[in-house]
């Protein structure tokens, strides 16, 4: 292992808006109440402004009866970055 390791940067997106629509137009407030966070937090997660903790991610997936990786998707957005390893 060298001192500098190439770690690709990942972008995380989600299908929450789509899944809510598929649930008869579930509102953000309804989802927030079932997950145990504020509606603003659901809004921020949907908009990609906030990455939830694993616990909240699992709770969201459980509401939609899906696996976490069916709700949250990640893709390599930049594989040229070099992050020094300590």
């Amino acid at each position, binding site marked *: 292992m060298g001192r500098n390791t190439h770690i690709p940067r990942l972008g995380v997106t989600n299908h929450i808006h789509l899944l809510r629509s598929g649930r008869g137009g579930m509102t953000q407030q309804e989802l927030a109440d079932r997950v*145990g966070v504020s509606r*603003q937090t659901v809004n921020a997660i949907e*908009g990609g402004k906030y990455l939830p903790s694993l616990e909240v991610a699992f709770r969201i997936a459980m509401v939609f009866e899906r696996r976490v990786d069916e709700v949250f998707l990640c893709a390599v957005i930049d594989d040229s970055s070099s992050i020094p390893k300590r």
Partner: protein
Amino acid sequence: MSSKLDMVALSSILDIGGEMRCRFFPRLGEEDGGTMSASFQEKSTWIKLAAMVACMGLYFVIAVQMLTNGVRDFGAFGLIFMQMTVLMVVVLAAGHGVVAALGRQEAPDERDRLISCKANHRSSWVLAVGVCCGLAGLALSVDAVWVAHGLLLSLVLAEVLHDILRLVSFRRGV
């Protein structure tokens, strides 16, 4: 009827900031076709910031006038400080009461805690600088009243910066 109208008017006043901010950050206003209103925590931060700036600002205006007039008695400053603190507590209690009555009261969730933690981390240097300056002032034999007010000012400024950073994070993301 009148009280209902008052509540509607208060509600619209409290949400004016939210409406304006949604114009600048349109993506955050995508709540099911409507605008994104502020959370309880965000409104609470606005109230705290306004109360802090108003009450402590007033205190420092009075204190500076007293200091320039040669007042050096800690008791005189302490009395005014106590009055402003009580006024701030009353404003905070009334403001939170109104916000809780107009909307739902929510406990802070993980995002609120993260925002607060980051804001705290980014604003603590103001207090540290104030303390260092206070120590330097004591070493240079600066009047204790000035040192005390310098320390208090750094504490207030750190809190104001903390609240501003929280408000920015609520809107722009963590």
